[in-house]
């Protein structure tokens, strides 16, 4: 490593080196929040500070806009349930094929082998995948937070039992247990699937929250709350958890992106969403053989998954920087 470091003339020179091309090409990556906050007379609350740091993260903001657009398009284009959307074609009907079904202005994502409009199909898959991903995120966050908070706060046998249960779930490969449960829940539709996936993906959050609570419960403000006779439940919900909110929010965001990857993988293997429901993973599974002849059938769902997961990951990264700006300060 010495040869690497020697390239800096002073050896002590630790200024960040932002090459012009680098920031332009991928300013998305970590961007903005590096700059120190201006010192003004106006004072900000903790929440405002976090929001300001978050909005400086260009990658996160771009991702938020893209993801927002995607959600709006997915839900309004073909409508939800009985409410019709603005897209004229239906995903169940087979239309006359134009040529071999390659994308045209009429069918922007092309048509499948039977002539179905692929845009409508992909939008439907996106809807289902988004619904599942967000539900899984919510369920796993609730379970993980509760388990972690109880284990960290009560210690003793509660902690031992809960953490051993967590270990049990950690040791079974996530994909395996999710596949088994997904198969069992397959008949109860996507809500059942979302619920069981949420029930197996909470383990990492539980560990994180426990660690956070373990250190928070020794703080003076918790001691003060105890001293005035506050009940355990109130201490956890009003004093401990609000201080751990950064960890929880960041982890919840990232769990959404892993949920969408888990769900699509399961559906691809045939253990996830069952027909007549569909998801982006099912679409790839159904059309992967068509890659050499009709590549668009393969590209669109994959790009959708990638876009959603990438956006959610960037938002999570922006949130992490916003809640915990220590990491982004340059070394001094």
């Amino acid at each position: 490593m010495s040869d690497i470091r020697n390239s800096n003339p002073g050896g002590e020179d630790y200024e960040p080196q932002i090459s012009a091309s680098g920031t332009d090409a991928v300013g998305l990556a970590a961007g903005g929040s590096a700059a120190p906050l201006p010192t003004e007379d106006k004072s900000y609350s903790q929440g405002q500070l976090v929001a300001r740091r978050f909005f400086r993260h260009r990658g996160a903001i771009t991702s938020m806009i893209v993801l927002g657009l995607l959600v709006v398009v997915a839900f309004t284009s073909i409508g939800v349930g009985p409410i019709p959307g603005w897209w004229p074609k239906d995903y169940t009907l087979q239309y006359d094929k134009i040529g071999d079904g390659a994308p045209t202005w009429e069918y922007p994502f092309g048509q499948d082998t039977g002539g179905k409009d692929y845009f409508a199909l992909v939008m439907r898959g996106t809807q289902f995948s988004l619904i599942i991903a967000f539900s899984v995120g919510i369920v796993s966050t609730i379970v993980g937070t509760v388990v972690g908070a109880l284990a960290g706060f009560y210690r003793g046998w509660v902690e031992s039992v809960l953490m051993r249960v967590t270990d049990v779930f950690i040791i079974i490969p996530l994909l395996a247990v999710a596949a088994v449960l997904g198969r069992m829940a397959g008949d109860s539709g996507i809500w059942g699937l979302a619920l069981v996936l949420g029930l197996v993906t909470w383990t990492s959050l539980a560990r994180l929250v426990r660690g956070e609570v373990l250190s928070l419960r020794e703080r003076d403000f918790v001691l003060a709350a105890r001293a005035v006779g506050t009940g355990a439940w109130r201490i956890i919900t009003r004093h401990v958890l609000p201080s751990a909110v950064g960890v929880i929010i960041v982890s919840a965001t990232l769990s959404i992106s892993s949920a969408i990857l888990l769900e699509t993988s399961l559906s691809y293997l045939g253990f996830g969403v069952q027909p007549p429901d569909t998801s982006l993973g099912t679409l790839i599974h159904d059309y992967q053989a068509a890659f050499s002849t009709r590549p668009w059938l393969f590209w669109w769902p994959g790009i959708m998954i990638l876009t959603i997961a990438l956006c959610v990951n960037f938002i999570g990264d922006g949130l992490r920087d916003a809640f915990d700006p220590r990491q982004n300060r340059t070394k001094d």
Partner: protein
Amino acid sequence: MLKFILRRIGVSALVLLGASFLMFILVINSGDPLKDLRESNAQNREQLMAQRAELLRLDDNPFERYWDWLTGVAGCFTGSCDLGVTINGVDVLGLTQQAAASSLRLITLATLLAIVVGVALGILTAIRQYSGFDYVVTFSAFLFFSLPVFWAATLLKEFAAIQYNNWIAVGQYAPTTIVVAALVVGFVLQAVLGGTRRRRLVTGVGAFAFVAVVLFVFNALDWWRNPTFGLGGVLLVSAAAGVLVTALVAGLRNRRVLYAALTTSVVGTVAYLAFAPLLVNQPSWLLLAGLFVLTLLVSAGIGAAWGGFARRQAMLVTGITGVITSILVVADILIANWSSFLGIKSRPISTIGSQTPNFTGDFWEQVLDMGTQILLPTVLLTLVSVATHSRYTRSSMLETLNQDYVRTARSKGLSEREVIVKHAFRNALIPITTIVAFDFAALIGGAVITEQVFGWKGMGALFQDGLNAVDPAPVMAFFLVTGIAAVVMNLVADLAYAALDPRIRR
């Protein structure tokens, strides 16, 4: 320390037991094992159903069935393994041995590569925080762990395997390709190495010229179809590796260590010359393993002999150099066999299976065949893990680089190498070990999908077919292998943790 290990093993065993019970109950309740028979029109349907119910013991109490499975597994400790039979009456133990061999080969290789590449990238991006290089790596990391594995696998098949196979039939780079490749290498290198503008320019231009010339020469020699590396190449690269490792671990000013590393390279090359007839004429895995152990012993011996006051450092450096040299030796033999391998298999990179069916060739050609089969799944699994590892390493490094003891180390005048390698990196490694162990479990999940896409008959297929048929024995065998592997990985991580962090040794 021993007590600590034993306690960890005990707890893990209990957790494994609980998990296996949970898994067993879930699997047998996951569907209807008689479904295909219920829908069949066979004359003897009732009889077949009764037969299968008898085989799977569907009428028995689930606890009894679990207990019997458990006693069968416990038999492994006394030498009479019984993992049950599949729904078709095939013995699961045999299936598992085959499947585990190919799956664990894939997973282990991917893990090792991911650790080396990921940690190295993480350190480099942390040292060059907010550089162009950092942004590129960060963005790629995000891209790779947002990538659906099954989708990327199909892309890799198409663009890496099929296109490469088309290309190797000719084996010549177009001049534009060479220029672009050289430009990319030059650009990346100057971004990584950094320094003043002039220094970066020199680095970039030098790398560009080197790569371009090498590629043109290779083209002219038809190197890609008839590659050679040779003894000189082994010696040169191994010596370079020795110098690099010395520079990282001990610093070039420590002459004893430097000479030890160079001695190892020379001895390794001479040993290659001595053993070459044996390696070419009567190769076997046993011979390779034996020579590898010998290499380690001799290298450590050289380190100890040269070491003096820096014995431990010298032994570490010579050990690493020895390992690199032996890898180079194997690579040299494989490269020499490449053109004859191309003669047998004209489209070398395959997209299906873990071995080419009916492949006949000598030992080295078979190794090459295995290598070309394992290449794509490994690349895929590695990419995803590299993304995680590099991110964690980066943030962990940044955290330690901000610590007061690093400032102290700098202010007392240590060289940048010592500050980064000894003070920052060693402490940054502590959280990384935990992540690596956790990630191993994620890799197993990834392997299930990768095996499915690449048509490997591994643990993934065992699991998938078993679950489809609601057949507990193969699914539990999958769980047993992956569960034990995960426990072992966690134990290794704990040991590494204890070695790195004296505070937790009890």
